[in-house]
Structures are given as structure tokens and as C-alpha cells.
């Protein structure tokens, strides 16, 4: 199989660091968030709140750096949504994958994400995460609402949105983690996110500049 595969350097060191940092932050936030929500009792309410607040703020700051990186490198283009090949990709995951067909949208430096990924990641990065951060920040700064003229808000509304989005992210994580196993081997995609090198099928046209990076 390896003879049919070629390696291309797909994820830079920053992207990989960011991805795994984000993974850790999400894991901690989900766990502590659910504990505060009363789903289980692990480290105690007070510590869960403290850690949740700290990690949430950490993410907020890190997210600013990510946004900066996204726009300075032009990588934001990777997230432009498209309907092209969307149906093909959906057909692949619901049918072709069981028949051993190759992925209809091979990864390349220019297009790291297939149309489904683009849509998912865009809604995550541009919609869910910002909402989560804003509501989280509001939640945290509850006592300052009056001073900020936000008296029209109620804790109930903020908590509702924050909880709903939290669960949204949990559902994303379930599907996302599973999708990592759909490479040519179960751990192929995870390996790529660790080393930066993604295996692509030999037949895929790989541009000259893609090989240079390594």
C-alpha cells in the first residue's frame, strides 16, 4: 500500500500546535463545563469553575493569535465554503467508503479541507466558537453587566446559549474524532496532524512546491 502513497507536508508546526492545544482546551472545558452543569462530580464545583474560567480565557487569547495567523497567511481561504463536490463527498462517506473507493476530494496544500470540512470548520470557527467565547465571557463577568449597560440580559439566556453551544461542540468532537479514522489506515490522519505529513494516493497530482517544504 505504501508504494501507492506519497507524503506531502500539509500542516505547519503552528497549525499542529494550535490544533492540539485547542484539543486540550476543549477537552478540559467540556469536562469542567459538564461538571459545573452537574453531570458528574470529579474535581469539585469550585475547582471546576476556576479551571473552566482560566482555560476559557486562555482559549480566548489563543484564538486571537489564531485569527491573526489565519488572515496574515491567507489560510482563511481554506475555510471558504463551497457546494462544489459537496454531494460527491456526502455520497462518498455514505456509500463509496464502504466500497473502498478513493476519496473524491484528495487533500492538497491548496485545499486541505473537503467541502464538508470547510462548512463544518467555518461554522465552528466563525460561529460556534465566537458565540461560546462571548457567552462565556458574559457568564464570567456577570457582576459587571450593570456597569456595562447589559442589564437586559439574564443569566438564563446566557447559560442556555452557552450550554447549547457546549453540547454542539461535544457532538462535533464525537464526529470529528471518528472521521480521523477514515484515512487509508485508522490512524493515518492523526499521524498527519502530529507529524505534519499527510499520505496521499500516488496518483494524485502533487505540485512541485508541495514537496519542498520538508
Amino acid at each position, binding site marked *: 500500500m505504501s508504494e501507492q502513497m506519497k507524503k506531502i507536508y500539509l500542516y505547519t508546526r*503552528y497549525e499542529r500546535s494550535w490544533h492540539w492545544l485547542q484539543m486540550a482546551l476543549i477537552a478540559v472545558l467540556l469536562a469542567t463545563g459538564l461538571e459545573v*452543569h452537574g453531570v458528574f462530580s470529579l474535581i469539585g464545583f469550585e475547582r471546576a*469553575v476556576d479551571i473552566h474560567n482560566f482555560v476559557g480565557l486562555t482559549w480566548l487569547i489563543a484564538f486571537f493569535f489564531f485569527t491573526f495567523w489565519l488572515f496574515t497567511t491567507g489560510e482563511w481561504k481554506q475555510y471558504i465554503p463551497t457546494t462544489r463536490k459537496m454531494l460527491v463527498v456526502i455520497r462518498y462517506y455514505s456509500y463509496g467508503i464502504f466500497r473502498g473507493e478513493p476519496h473524491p476530494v484528495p487533500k492538497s496544500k491548496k485545499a486541505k479541507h473537503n467541502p464538508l470540512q470547510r462548512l463544518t470548520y467555518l461554522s465552528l470557527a466563525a460561529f460556534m466558537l465566537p458565540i461560546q467565547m462571548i457567552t462565556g465571557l458574559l457568564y464570567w463577568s456577570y457582576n459587571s453587566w450593570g456597569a456595562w449597560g447589559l442589564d437586559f440580559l439574564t443569566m*438564563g439566556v446566557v447559560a442556555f446559549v452557552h450550554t447549547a453551544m457546549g*453540547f454542539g461542540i461535544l457532538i462535533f468532537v464525537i464526529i470529528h474524532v*471518528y472521521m480521523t479514522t477514515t484515512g487509508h489506515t485508522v490512524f493515518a490522519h492523526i499521524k498527519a496532524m502530529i507529524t505534519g505529513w499527510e499520505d496521499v494516493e500516488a496518483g494524485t497530482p502533487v505540485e512541485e512546491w508541495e514537496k519542498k517544504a520538508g
Partner: protein
Amino acid sequence: MNNPNKLGGLVLQTRFYHICVMAIAACFAFFPQAQAGEESSPAPGRAMARQAGILSGDWSTADHSEMEKLQQTFESGPEITEACLSCHAKADDQLFHTIHWKWLSPYEDGDLIGKAGYSINNFCISTNKMEDQKCSSCHIGWNGKEDGINCLRCHGGADMDWQAQFKDYKFFKEMGETELVEEIQADIKEAVTDITRPTRQNCGSCHFNGGGGEAVKHGDLDASLIKPKRSLDVHMGIDGQDFSCTRCHTTQEHQVSGRVYSTPAVSERKSLVEDDLAPKISCESCHTATPHKDDKINDHTDMVACQSCHIPEFARAHATEMTWDWSKAGRLKEGKPYIEKGKYDRPVYKSIKGTFTWEKDVVPKYYWYNGSVAAVTAKDVIDPSKTVRLSHPVGERGEGQSRIFPFKVHWAKQPYDKVNNTLVTPLLSKKNNGYWKTFDWQDSISRGMDIMDLPWSGELGFVETTYVFPTTHMVAPKEQALDCRACHRLKSGRLENLAGFYMPGRDRFQLLDYGAWGLAIAALAAVLLHAIGRIMASPGKKEE
């Protein structure tokens, strides 16, 4: 062409690496403070309180044992008072204006509110305008209000039964027992010259024994506070700060602060640092409104009173009386009243009073409270089909100074007039030929209501009532303060009954939870099925 590109990529990568490290470093600025230096510095509120408390301590410029006026023979209480007033000339006038003397609310006109008025509780019910003699034993006069002020009630250092002492004195004087008379007079003189600022004994002789016995009335005020450990009361603990009552209950012209009637207890959140002569000292006067190291906990002080978390339970040393059923009173054994003792060696039945229950380490009930307690009087019409809230805390969320505050709620079943739907005020004392002697409700109520000048139909019923006491003494050391989960929990949290606001950990949107967990489980099921599908399909792929 290759080289610059490669170099550029490398430089760019390194830069992002640096940015990444910086980002993580920046985040640590927010690391929870509690992690660092737990014991090295006291919490801000504690440091402020220490500063505010520096001036604590009893000192005086007078030695009463050397005063000529007190070197005389005293044959009655009023003679002692006269001697006091010969120097402290304004004291009696000051005192006559106080609640301690009048037993009437200073905040209302007339005689409606107060022990000496139409106020009713669900212990001994009413003082019948101070006519009921047993009740008056706590009044600061020599003989109720009859013979003037007894200064020594609050300022006497000696524990003395003055009535008995003067009775003996007269008796032996008439008998001509000179030696005994001199002995008694020496005792009196010693007691008269032993003058103090009010001690815990002075205040406690009434306030620890309200409602007809020790630890009956208040759950947070009982004789255990005379020599408490720090673990019972962090302020009064003799192994701690050793505060006397007057350390917080400050006085102006004999008006002692801290009484709760209709005026909010704390109308201003004032620190002693801002105003070191503030007449009413509250927790925040010394500890400030931001006493904790943890900001999130400080965020609570606008809604939650300090007492709510720092008095985890009341009656932690002596059991307190929680219920009193007057309707069971009057049973006799062989024609005689009796007492039955139960747990904590406390009476569970008294023929003269009915049944009681006692509890120790009681978890308070929590209500919004702006410092006022609203009360029903003997003049008010009640609805006997429901439990009558004889007194209840006033306040609601978001209203001014209202905060969540802990209360002892005392339940009772007490007599009422079934026709007029009013609570009744039986005369009780033996000296008054009251219920405790006659066991006759009709007679004791009709005479009691006569004194009050209130109608009595003669139809006796018993109604359930509740009476509240704000819990503010017996503040525990910080280690015993409540954990977040005491309230921030799904079920049976301490604030379970306070509605109208979302509280993290306590509240959730049931539909959202069902929907979200449903979707999460559906997602999990979907990926599992997908995985199984792939595994099943893979052998077939090889054959192809």
C-alpha cells in the same frame, strides 16, 4: 528560486512558533490566584477586619469601689439606682427612650409593635402589655417597669438575685440578726461596686434565655456563647478574638444597635475605615464587601449575605427548640402538671406549655431579606386555613439591599379565636393566676384579652404559625464555610426554594438537556454504525 522560498517558510514557521509560545504565556496571567501563596497572606477581608479591630478592649477611667456614693447601706434596688444617677445624671432619661426599657418599636408611633405592644410570637405569645409577671423578669427595671431602672442588669459584674437578697435583708433585719445583716450588706456593696461594661453574662441573662428557657428562642444565641470555642463563634471564641457582645452592638446614648424591627438592619454598606463611629456594625463594616481572595466568591456578596455561607448550621453547641405545640398543654398526672424530658435532656412535654421538639446543628432556611421582618399583631385578622406567618423576612431579589439570608424558622400551634380569626394572648404566669396555674384556657385568654382591650368570642382553636429569626451569630471559622455545592447542586441544594433566577449547577433547561444528550447519543450511534459498516465491508473489498 528554491532557497529564498525555503528560508521564508522556515522564518515564518519559527515566528508562529514564537507567537504560539507567547500566547500560552499570556494566558497564564489569568491562572487562578488561589493556587499561589494560600497561607502567606490573609484574605483581604480578614486583613481589613484586623485593622478595624485594633481599638478593641475594655478600659475605664473610673474605679467604682472607691466612690463615696457607693459606700452606703442599700435597702432596696431603687436606692442603688439613685446612687448611680447622682453621677450619671442623664442615664435614666436616655434609658427611658430605649427599646430595652419601652419594649416597643422605636420605628413606629404608638404601641402596636413590640413586646409591650400587640406583637405576638409563637413562644409565650405575648407579655400582655407587660402585665404577665414572668415575662417581665427579663425587663431591665427593678420590678418590671414599676420601680425604675436596674442599672446593674447590664452593668453589674456580680451574678446576684437582687429580689431574694433584699428580701433576706429585710427578714433578718426584723429578726435582729445583725451578723447576717452585715454579711448580706457586704455582699450587696461588693456587687454594687463591681461595675462593668455589659458582659456576655449581662446580655445573655435575657438574650440567651428568651422564650422561657436557655436556647429556646434564637438558634444562634444561647449560653454556649458565654465561653464559646473559636469553632463555634470565630469572633466571640475565648481562644480567638474574644469579642464581647458590645464589640459589634455599639451604643449611642444607651440605644444598643442591632435590633431588627421594620427598619433595614444595614441601610448602608459602610466600612469602619470610612466611618469609624458607624452606629451599626455589620460584617462588611470590618470585612468590606470584597473580603475573599477569590474574585468569583466576592461576586456573591451583592446577593448573598456573609451569614449564608459562614454560619453553615446554627445551634452547633446547644440544641435549640424548633417546634412548640400549645394544643397539647394541660395534661396532668394525678391532677398535677409534669415535665417529660427527651433528647438533649430537654423537655419534650410540659403540662403548662405543651410539646416541644429540639434540634442541634440545624441547617437554616434561606430567604431574600432586606433587613426588615414583617410581623402579625394581636389586632390582625389571620387565615387559619393556612400556616400563619407570624413573622417573615421582607425582601426580594434585585430589590435594594435584599440578600439571601439564613433564618431559624420556629413552628408552633397556638391558640386563636375561631370567630374573630385573631390570635389570642392568654395570661400565663402563676403570679397572675394564669394558665400555668389554672390550666383554664377560657379564663386565661379572656383575662389576657381584656388587658389588651381586644375582643374574645370564647371559641378556642389552635392554628399553625411560623416565626423567623435572622441567623447572624455563631459565625464559623472559614474552614467550616459552606462549599459551593451546598447551593450549586441539582437536587436538595440549600437554595432549592428560591426561584426566579438561573443558578449554575442548580438550574438547567430540561428540554435542552434532553435534546442535546439525544443528539450526542445519536451522533455516537451513527459513527459506531458507520464504523461497523466499514469493518463489514472491508473483506469484500479484498475479494474484488
